[in-house]
């Protein structure tokens, strides 16, 4: 199970049996989000403490941790949704593609065009399936019906739901099952061609089959997008992510390849959490 960056040891002398080897994350991929000494407070409550994380492109990064550990706050900081809470204060830096998103002249609309989000509960608009997907492109000024048709089809195909809905594009999206609605939300997100997709517990309201479909979809689309997923389901993090960050009490306890986190975590707190000893 241990691969990539750690070497298999063949020991020849008794002295070094059992010595620890350090694991370094070595990758040539570009960094999408870089957090440097990032702190966040809700009023007096210090919710994120000195976060330093590099999130790479075309990877699935899972964020795990017990309730109240700051994982949802963290991904909501990545598209500045946390600013909707009036008492929020931040310190330090989060850069998206090299630019600090909290910089005074950074337009939040510009950021959210590049950083889409899928929420815990499917939240399609009370409109037709077609209009749900075409909503974003229309806001961005696309009026041409043929172009919109293409975007709708491409997005629905990208979200692996085209075959299920192609004959009823004009029906209300509310008539779909929860799992289908969530994939419609993913398609709606893909329609604006984001660079990054944030997913906040995207399958916690879904049945097991729909969950597996969304997981499969995440694997398929990661080659085009960078995905950051917050999940309570540790098996899900183990199944679909390339890297995992374990948050506890607002801090990143451990961030490493998922293989490493789930086989030989370095920190005892990570081991205790992933093996269900607390949380």
């Amino acid at each position, binding site marked *: 199970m241990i691969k990539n960056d750690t070497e298999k040891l063949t*020991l020849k002398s008794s002295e070094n049996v059992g010595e620890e080897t350090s694991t370094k994350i070595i990758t040539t991929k570009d960094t999408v989000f870089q957090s440097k000494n990032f702190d966040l407070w809700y009023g007096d409550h210090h919710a994120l403490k000195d976060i330093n994380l590099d999130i790479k492109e075309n990877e699935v990064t899972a964020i795990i941790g017990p309730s109240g550990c700051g994982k949802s706050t963290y991904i909501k900081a990545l598209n500045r949704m946390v600013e909707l809470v009036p008492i929020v204060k931040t310190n330090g830096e989060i850069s998206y593609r090299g630019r600090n998103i909290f910089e005074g002249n950074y337009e939040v609309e510009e950021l959210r065009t590049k950083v889409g989000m899928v929420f815990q509960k499917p939240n399609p608009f009370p409109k037709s399936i077609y209009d749900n997907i075409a909503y974003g492109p229309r806001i961005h000024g696309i009026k041409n019906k043929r172009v919109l048709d293409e975007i709708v089809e491409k997005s629905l195909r990208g979200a692996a739901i085209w075959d299920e809905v192609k004959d009823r594009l004009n029906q209300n999206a509310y008539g779909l099952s929860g799992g289908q609605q969530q994939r419609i939300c993913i398609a709606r997100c893909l329609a604006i061609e984001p660079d990054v997709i944030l997913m906040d517990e995207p399958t916690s309201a879904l049945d097991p089959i729909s969950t597996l479909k969304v997981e499969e979809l995440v694997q398929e689309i990661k080659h085009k997008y960078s995905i950051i997923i917050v999940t309570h389901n540790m098996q899900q993090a183990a199944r679909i992510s390339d890297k995992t960050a374990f948050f506890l009490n607002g801090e990143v306890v451990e961030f490493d390849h998922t293989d490493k986190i789930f*086989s030989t975590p370095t920190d005892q707190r990570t081991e205790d959490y992933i093996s269900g000893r607390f949380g």
Partner: protein
Amino acid sequence: MGVRGRYEHDIEDVQNELIKLCKLSISQLDLTFKSFINKDLKLAREIINKDTEINHLEELINDRVILIMTRQQPVAKDLRRLVVLLKAASDMERVGDYAVNIAKETIRIGDSQFITSVELIEDMFLKTSAMLNQVVEAFVEENTTKAKEVADFDDQIDEMYGSMITQLMKLSSVRPENISQITNLAFICRFIERCADLATNIAEYLFYLKKGQRFDLNN
């Protein structure tokens, strides 16, 4: 009881079953030593019959590990422990099989006199039994220092095996009429040497359990 008390209890239970299997296999090996030295053919037959108990115990461990994996989705050290329990059970069951093989060779030798000194074989028996006992102790205590010592013992067994085989080869040219017993003794040496290798395997599993990395203790 902690959050996963039942789960921890189940893993501990399987580990206890493994210890039981280890003790049974080692006791079988010790009895084959007695049977070999004393030419006790009745005891040899008893050893052969008792092997089914070991086989059943290994199957039980396999089934219980698979059930825990299915129901509890273990990760990290818990998962490594279960994998190690499976592998160690398989190796210790093999020790039981080798005890049976030695008992069969003992029966083949029958009550005829040994044609050569078997002191080295006695030594191999005793050392291998000590290795197996120590590796079980190391496993229970999760003591890697003890486990490493077991691997060091294995080199001595290999040397003794080499010497004994050389001795038997020489004898085969001098006393070709006794080739049958020479072959029986050579096989017994081979089976003991394999038991020592299996003890080393279990020592390696302990390192894997504790560190999550594979160590070749035979080099």
